[in-house]
């Protein structure tokens, strides 16, 4: 459709900006690289908003159903007439929604970074990486082709690697970026195998065709995939589960969540970007994109649901014990992404049954605002205090009035207190869970209570607690740091009132969703109770939290050490993989592979020593050999001429 072809610019502008700043950001344009990056993103965000308007209100709807619009479609790699990889730009409700979220959050991060990263040595490089990150995520969400998703998926991985390790002179940052990259790469292996299985079974890489072929009952592709099985599980389930492993790795789902808390080593605005709009929601987006397939295959959908529920619960428990402000926020992200996952997991496909899917996307939408708000507040606080540890904070209420209000809005929103946005999306996820799986509903309610507790634990310890007399180098921060906070706080308050179910549903047909007030009373009361409990414990400094921690004893320690996940992974990798696989492999490499090569070399040397006497350096010896050779050849020639 030609009137939507400007969408391409949403992708091309950040890419061009990356090239420009990557080449000139170090010296030539260093000073103004931030302004360039931000203004480019401003244009991108404006275009994305226009796309939202045009898609949802002008062109998207056909017979009451939002249909898929292929803005651009071309063949990229053609291996044979049957096997080819296409690229393109596709618009459907979730991709348009993601375009909007990614560009807006990225814009806010760009603006915030103007103040936060000021005076940084590699300022231009930072903005170049930021553009690359935005570009890869934007391209991921509009992909028409599952292989195209994979390419940009990896690009998201590499740009997050670059940004997490931005302070590359800090060993912990280097380790964190390596960890993030390796863990997600490990999961991407599953993704790749999953893609291969699905596309082999369906005979296409194009998502739309793939979904149609594999959800049509009695289609040859579907029959092929359900009848062929491995270890008693059908190929379709294998493919979807493996794809989900890739999504779980990127989305930091249990048990692949270990990289996300460490990824806090990057600059704080980057954390906001990773957590709110790019990277971690990519996994949720992937499952949502292939949702018709998942809802068709119940067993893989159950895996999604239970992994989501566990990932919602465990990090929430861990977050209650952590003292690093960014780590608490990181665990809360895992927990909220867990919500989205099980929201998808409990959803059905059509009509009212699609509530979970719609709620999950809604939560993704609201989460993007309040989580980026919380992270940017954390950035402002860290910028002021120069420490990540909440023990160094406290009593910041008076010093940072705007940040205080913004952070409070974020906390209320994530805790699901009406009328803030988190309330609406969370309630819908919970009611979807209530309708299909009571166990998951219970986990969800309990987690929501924990969320309220640890977020307000954080809030009270940062902004209340003791009043300090601190000497500060500067005030709350420049306008560029305050403005995004205000914008995001307003969005986080209002985003819940968007009638989301009219726009985003699994079968693209609007449904009527309503918040059931009676139903909401129970979780909200629990959350409020948790907030009051947190206030009692942390509002002023007292000995109660320490007492509770000691009375919980082992459980507290267990949660404080993050359930020993890092230790388990280290044990598995260092003790088991290194000793049992790495060492023997190294031995074989050293002694057998290298040994063969050494043997070859040694033999060559021996033979050379034996025959080097010929090279005497005496000219006349050579002449003798030469003539002897000629005589020998002549003799041979004469002999063979005569014999036949």
């Amino acid at each position, binding site marked *: 459709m030609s009137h939507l072809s400007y969408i391409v610019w949403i992708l091309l502008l950040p890419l061009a900006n990356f090239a420009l700043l990557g080449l000139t950001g170090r010296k030539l344009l260093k000073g103004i690289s931030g302004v360039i990056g931000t203004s480019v993103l401003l244009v991108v965000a404006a275009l994305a908003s226009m796309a939202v308007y045009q898609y949802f209100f002008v062109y998207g709807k056909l017979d009451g159903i939002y249909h898929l619009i292929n803005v651009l479609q071309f063949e990229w790699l053609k291996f044979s007439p049957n096997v080819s990889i296409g690229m393109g730009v596709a618009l459907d409700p979730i991709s348009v929604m993601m375009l909007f979220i990614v560009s807006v959050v990225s814009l806010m991060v760009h603006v915030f970074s103007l103040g936060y990263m000021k005076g940084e040595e590699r300022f231009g490089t930072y903005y170049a990486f930021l553009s690359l990150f935005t570009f890869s995520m934007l391209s991921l969400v509009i992909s028409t082709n599952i292989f195209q998703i994979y390419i940009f998926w990896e690009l998201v991985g590499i740009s997050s690697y670059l940004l997490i390790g931005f302070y590359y002179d800090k060993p912990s940052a280097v380790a964190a970026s390596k960890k993030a990259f390796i863990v997600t790469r490990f999961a991407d292996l599953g993704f790749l195998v999953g893609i291969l299985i699905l596309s082999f079974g369906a005979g296409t890489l194009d998502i739309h065709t793939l979904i149609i072929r594999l959800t049509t009952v009695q289609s040859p592709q579907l029959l092929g995939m359900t009848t062929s099985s491995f270890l008693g599980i059908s190929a379709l389930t294998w493919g979807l589960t493996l794809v989900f492993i890739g999504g779980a790795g990127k989305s930091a789902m249990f048990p692949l969540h270990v990289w996300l808390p460490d990824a806090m080593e990057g600059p704080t605005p980057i954390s906001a970007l990773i957590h709110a709009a790019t990277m971690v929601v990519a996994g949720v987006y992937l499952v949502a994109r292939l949702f018709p397939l998942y809802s068709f295959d119940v067993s893989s959908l159950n895996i999604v649901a239970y992994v989501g529920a566990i990932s919602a619960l465990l990090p929430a428990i861990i977050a209650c014990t952590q003292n690093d402000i960014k780590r608490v926020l990181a665990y809360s992200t895992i927990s909220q992404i867990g919500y989205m996952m099980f929201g998808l997991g409990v959803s059905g496909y059509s009509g009212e049954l699609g509530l979970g899917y719609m709620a999950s996307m809604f939560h993704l939408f609201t989460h993007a605002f309040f989580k980026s708000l919380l992270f940017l507040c954390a950035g402002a606080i860290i910028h002021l205090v120069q420490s990540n540890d909440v023990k160094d904070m406290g009593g910041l209420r008076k010093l940072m009035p705007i940040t205080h209000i913004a952070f409070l809005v974020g906390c209320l929103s994530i805790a699901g207190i009406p009328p803030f946005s988190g309330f609406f999306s969370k309630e819908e996820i919970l009611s979807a869970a209530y309708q299909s799986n009571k166990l998951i509903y219970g986990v969800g309610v309990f987690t929501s209570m924990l969320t309220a507790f640890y977020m307000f634990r954080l809030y009270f310890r940062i902004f209340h607690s003791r009043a300090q007399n601190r000497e500060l180098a500067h005030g709350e921060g420049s306008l560029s740091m305050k403005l995004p906070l205000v914008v995001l706080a307003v969005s986080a308050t209002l985003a819940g009132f968007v009638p989301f179910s009219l726009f985003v549903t699994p079968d693209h047909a609007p449904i009527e969703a309503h918040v059931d007030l009676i139903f909401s009373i129970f979780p909200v009361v629990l959350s409020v109770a948790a907030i009051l409990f947190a206030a009692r414990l942390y509002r002023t400094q007292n000995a109660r939290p320490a007492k509770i921690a000691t009375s919980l004893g082992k459980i507290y320690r267990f949660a404080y050490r993050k359930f020993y996940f890092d230790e388990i992974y280290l044990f598995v990798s260092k003790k088991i993989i290194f000793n049992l696989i790495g060492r023997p492999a190294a031995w074989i490499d050293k002694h057998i592979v290298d040994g063969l090569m050494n043997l070859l070399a040694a033999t060559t040397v021996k033979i050379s020593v034996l025959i080097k006497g010929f*090279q005497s*350096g005496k*000219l*006349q010896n050579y*002449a003798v050999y030469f003539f002897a050779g000629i005589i020998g050849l002549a003799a041979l020639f004469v002999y063979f001429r005569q014999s036949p």
Partner: protein
Amino acid sequence: MNNVPLVQILFVSTGLFFIGMYGLFSRRNLITILMSIELMLNSVNINFVAFNKYLYTTQLNGVIFTIFIITIAAAEAAVAIAIIINLYRSHHSIDVEDAGELKY
């Protein structure tokens, strides 16, 4: 002239060839070695001319070939003498035994 048989001419050329070969193998002086090589070349020339005259009377191939060989030999002599002069400059000798660096 025609009463000289081919065999006798071949004897002469073979003799010349082996005299040249002997010189190539036994002499130490590079100039002498060069002269030996010229001898060998000329023995070949004699062969060419003789065979042309006795076996292919209507053609001139052998003679033409000989003229080419003489030309090449002249060029080769120029190159060889240049090499010898350079060798003398670097080693202060034109004895092949003295220039034995190119060995293992």
